[in-house]
């Protein structure tokens, strides 16, 4: 397979490549949804409440944004291995394990950035919300709704990180042909096979995909903003 053929592969609808791209997208989108479902409420709660040790929680969340994927992968590997605490589940070397690893990887990013965005909004709206005597849960929901466009960008940042990483999914997925092989692990594999041109070609495909998803989100947002007013 020659490198110049990466584009031909895409255009000709090579089923193997499509399966790899489909798996990449489904894993990363699932992880992004899961991380957003946990991270946004978590960040919003930390952003709008005052409690002892809050400073420490914020520092830890911010620091965890720099989690190395390979460390997350190793931790999930040890937990899911048959010899690990969750070994009974038999999840190692499955797409589910890859979703778990990517979720853990981007959860701190989404939570930490949400915390900052919501805290800024809270400073702006605190007076009104206090005057209206809104409960804590409604308060968080209102702020999340008001900040939805900023939060969309934050979720995209998490998506980008998950889509780009190779260290975690390689360890917990095992890069099994036709089962856990995704874009980034394919690129790593083709590089090690000396197919450098094909590896670069696949890298371009990955960048185009991520750009397309960002563009789609941007278009939706612009459309929503027009209709929201």
């Amino acid at each position, binding site marked *: 397979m020659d490198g110049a053929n990466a584009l031909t592969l895409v255009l000709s609808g090579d089923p193997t490549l499509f399966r790899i791209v489909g*798996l990449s997208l489904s894993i990363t989108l699932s992880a992004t949804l899961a991380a957003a479902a946990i991270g946004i409420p978590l960040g919003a709660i930390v952003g709008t409440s005052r409690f002892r040790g809050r400073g420490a929680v914020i520092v830890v969340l911010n620091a965890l944004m720099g989690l190395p994927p390979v460390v997350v992968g190793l931790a999930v590997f040890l937990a899911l291995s*048959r010899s690990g605490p969750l070994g009974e589940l038999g999840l190692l*070397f499955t*797409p589910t394990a890859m979703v778990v690893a990517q979720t853990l990887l981007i959860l701190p990013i989404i939570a930490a950035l949400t915390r900052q965005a919501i805290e800024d909004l809270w400073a702006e709206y605190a007076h009104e919300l206090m005057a209206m005597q809104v409960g804590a849960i409604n308060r968080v929901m209102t702020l999340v709704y008001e900040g939805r466009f900023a939060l969309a960008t934050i979720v995209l940042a998490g998506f980008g990180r998950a889509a780009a990483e190779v260290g975690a999914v390689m360890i917990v997925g*095992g890069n*099994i042909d036709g089962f856990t092989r995704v874009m980034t692990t394919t690129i790593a594999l083709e590089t*090690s096979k000396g197919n450098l041109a094909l590896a670069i070609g696949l890298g371009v495909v990955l960048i185009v995909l991520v750009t397309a998803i960002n563009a789609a989100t941007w278009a*939706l947002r612009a*459309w929503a903003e027009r209709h929201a007013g």
Partner: protein
Amino acid sequence: MQRNVLTAFTLALVLAPMGAASVTAQETSIVVASTTSTEDSGLFRHILPLFKAKSGINVKVVAQGTGQALDTARRGDADVVFVHAKAQEEKFVADGYGVERFDVMYNDFVLIGPKSNPAKVMGGKDVVAALNAIAEAKTSFVSRGDKSGTHSAELKLWTVTGLDPQKDKPAWYREIGQGMGAALNTAGAMGAYVLSDRATWISFKNKGTLDIAVEGDTRLFNQYGIILVDPKKHPHVKSKPGQAFIDWVLSAEGQNAIRSFRIDGQQLFFPNAETARQKKAG
């Protein structure tokens, strides 16, 4: 409204491939921990569809260095190991992690080096003399450094020279701790020597200025073995389909499948299971 569109779009993207993945997960499948040489060269892509057609069993290959593959199996994360470092494999069985080890096939290691021939070893037949010459000339040498089968073989050859670069760490000896392909890429970029299995070398696409420096030494023999992980150690091991795979690989049909795997007309692996079995019987 716009939210519903977004949600539906996302769900479709997420669920469609997940559904496809769960369908395949319901078939009988086993995990085989194997080496990068067997996976990267394309051997499994050649033989697994034949086995699947015969048995209906899906074989999932996790390609790692031999040391890591045995470790994966030791933790119970694989059903079968298919690797190439006999001493490590026999220890694996002796420690109770494997049922029994069988010879499957062989090929050989080759010493790869720059065509510019800095250590004057090109075309030699004596790998030990070549390693001595490399050490003498202090030409760069890339070591896998990852406890793989090829790394074990390399260390064994250094022992014969009487040198111990892994311990002495001279500047010309570079341990990279990566797979065979990565080691070849590195050696190519550095103009260094490197020991490779022949299958990975033949299928490697970025040869550049590298070429075979030494081949044909009997000490470069490279035997592959297959072992079922012992269900007594790990009760969840799928021993029935695992054993079916081993039986097939060792059968005439499996051995022929290995023999018929070629790249550019070159045979990469030479089956020798039957001779091993006859020896056992005799």
